[in-house]
């Protein structure tokens, strides 16, 4: 990043070039990482390796895209750069709703159900919950960012411990079923769910692609946006519903990852230096892919660590969060 870009006014053309350059670099990086991921250390039949790793790669791309886009959207709607859905407890909500579903229905009934139906049920529960949470936190009186963050973080802890408590109340057998449902890893993704996930995420992405300008206006904040003809409440709730869908997809596939979205979104903002969604959304998505695929390749192939990627991401994401908090205090 050029340091003078911060001080001198940047012309639109300059910022456009920079954004394009960043996107191209990111895209190239993702392509390279994906190629390495597919080929490095392969032994035996290529047909098998490519198919096996191709599935994993599709999963990683899906998760990266869902997490990054949901984070950027959430940040746009709430008008700040620290909040992310998972920090506000969305992931924990998903874990809790799955737990409650098993607790009330029992694993026998659940295993008889179509997994797609089950996923739909969890999705609806979660969307309703998150709408309620959002209205309570954001559409009420104006409040300080720190209190909001703390509320979200503690609320997340509450939901997680509540889920843990309900899990303890379950039969050990039912608990086994549940932990299979909840604690998937980046490398072990259910193909049926992945199909649904791709369909949902593609639909959301298409809607977003047609409404990029509207997102830009929402990002200007409520007063300006309303002046420019945005129906604030309706549009914001719609965007939040989309966020819920994306979070549900990623959480259903890999389980909760608290700081990944924040890490990807913050790095993408740093890279493109613009808030235009036409640039920011793809950049965040590509950054997330680069982190996830590159990280997985490095850890799996070079260091032979298997599922530690989530932990490494949590570590660096947490550090980024602290830095953002400290910078926010300085301003």
């Amino acid at each position, binding site marked *: 990043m050029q340091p003078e870009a911060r001080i001198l006014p940047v012309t639109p053309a300059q910022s456009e070039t920079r954004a394009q350059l960043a996107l191209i670099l990111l895209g190239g990086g993702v392509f390279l990482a994906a190629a390495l991921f597919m080929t490095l250390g392969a032994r035996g039949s290529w047909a098998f390796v490519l198919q096996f790793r191709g599935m994993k790669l599709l999963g990683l791309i899906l998760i990266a895209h869902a997490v990054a886009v949901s984070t950027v959207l959430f940040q746009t709607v709430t008008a700040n750069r620290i909040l992310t859905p998972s920090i506000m407890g969305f992931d924990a909500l998903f874990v809790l709703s799955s737990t409650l579903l098993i607790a009330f229905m029992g694993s026998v009934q659940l295993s008889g159900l179509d997994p797609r139906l089950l996923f739909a049920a969890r999705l609806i529960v979660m969307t309703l919950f998150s709408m309620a949470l959002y209205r309570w936190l954001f559409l009420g009186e104006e409040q300080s960012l720190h209190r909001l963050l703390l509320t979200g*973080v503690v609320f997340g802890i509450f939901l997680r411990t509540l889920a843990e*408590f309900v899990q303890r109340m379950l039969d050990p057998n039912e608990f086994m079923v549940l932990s299979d449902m909840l604690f998937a890893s980046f490398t072990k993704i259910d193909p049926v769910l992945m199909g649904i996930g791709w369909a949902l995420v593609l639909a959301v992405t298409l809607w977003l692609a047609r409404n990029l300008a509207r997102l830009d206006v929402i990002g200007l904040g409520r007063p300006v946006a309303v002046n420019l003809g945005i129906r604030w409440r309706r549009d914001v709730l719609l965007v939040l519903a989309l966020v819920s869908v994306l979070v549900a997809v990623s959480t259903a596939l890999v389980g909760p990852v608290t700081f990944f979205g924040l890490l990807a979104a913050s790095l993408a903002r740093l890279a493109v230096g613009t808030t235009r969604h036409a640039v920011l959304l793809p950049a965040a998505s590509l950054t997330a892919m680069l982190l996830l695929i590159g990280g997985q390749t490095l850890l799996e192939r070079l260091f032979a660590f298997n599922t530690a990627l989530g932990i490494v991401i949590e570590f660096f994401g947490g550090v980024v969060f602290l830095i953002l*908090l400290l910078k926010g*205090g300085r301003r």
Partner: protein
Amino acid sequence: MRLGLAFLLVAALAAISLTVGVSGLSLSRLLAGDGRDWLILWESRVPRTLALLLAGASMAIAGLLMQIVIRNRFVEPSTTGTVEAAGLGLLVMTLLAPGAPVIVKMAVGAVFALGGTGLFLLVLRRVPLRDQMIVPLIGIILTGVLHAATTFFAYRADLMQTVLAWTQGDLSGVLRGRYELLWLGAAMAAVAWIAADRFTLAGLGRDMATSLGLAHGRVLALGLSIVSGVTAVVVVTVGIIPFLGLIVPNLVSLALGDNMRRAVPWVAVSGAGLVLACDILGRILRAPYEIPVGTILGVIGSLTFLILILKGRRNAA
């Protein structure tokens, strides 16, 4: 007088705790000198009850001490990185010197805990705008970062099971010979009581305390050392008991105000009582299985914490 009633209540809870468990005890058989019943009582129930009392009281006092010294209502060892750092220290000892006696492991844990607290204070110092909310927020995130580091090493060394034992306050494994270290924790908490006035002064802030003739830095160091020591003892013997040190002092101060010397006995009694009640609940809710006390307190504690935060919102508005 009211404190006496509270003591009685806790004593009653302790008596209940002696009788609740998977294998039944009966008074008549105890009086008849039944060997099996006495064995269960001495080897398991009495140690467990004592461990609950000691851990509850000393963790609650540690929380109070930390809140006074750091001057923030929402800090306690599990929201400042202290607990996680202690766990990291124990993990390091398990990796490097697995044969070391528990007291040595605990000492190393305490040193790490102090280091974690120091790191937290160092980060805090970089925040010029210190509103009440950002302090625990930074602490919780720091805890998450330390937790990720601990998990990473534990995962590499195949020690996840061991780490899980520390991160979940669970007393089902407490037997005679496995909890006595907690007396040391209680002794440290007692020092905090004796020196309560100094800490109250230190809580007025450095300038004020110094002008009143207090060696502020030294008192601060003593306070944080006590907190770290108690934390390490509790983590190594029974595991993390989350939010106890946060909610108990806050509830007590709602009732009594902020004088530490007056608050300490109340905090100790309420902390012990709350942990006892939660553990008894954990033993009967899902008998014959047990729900760890850490899980129950996690739910109650985080909910109370949430209410405290939101209550502040209404007051501020």
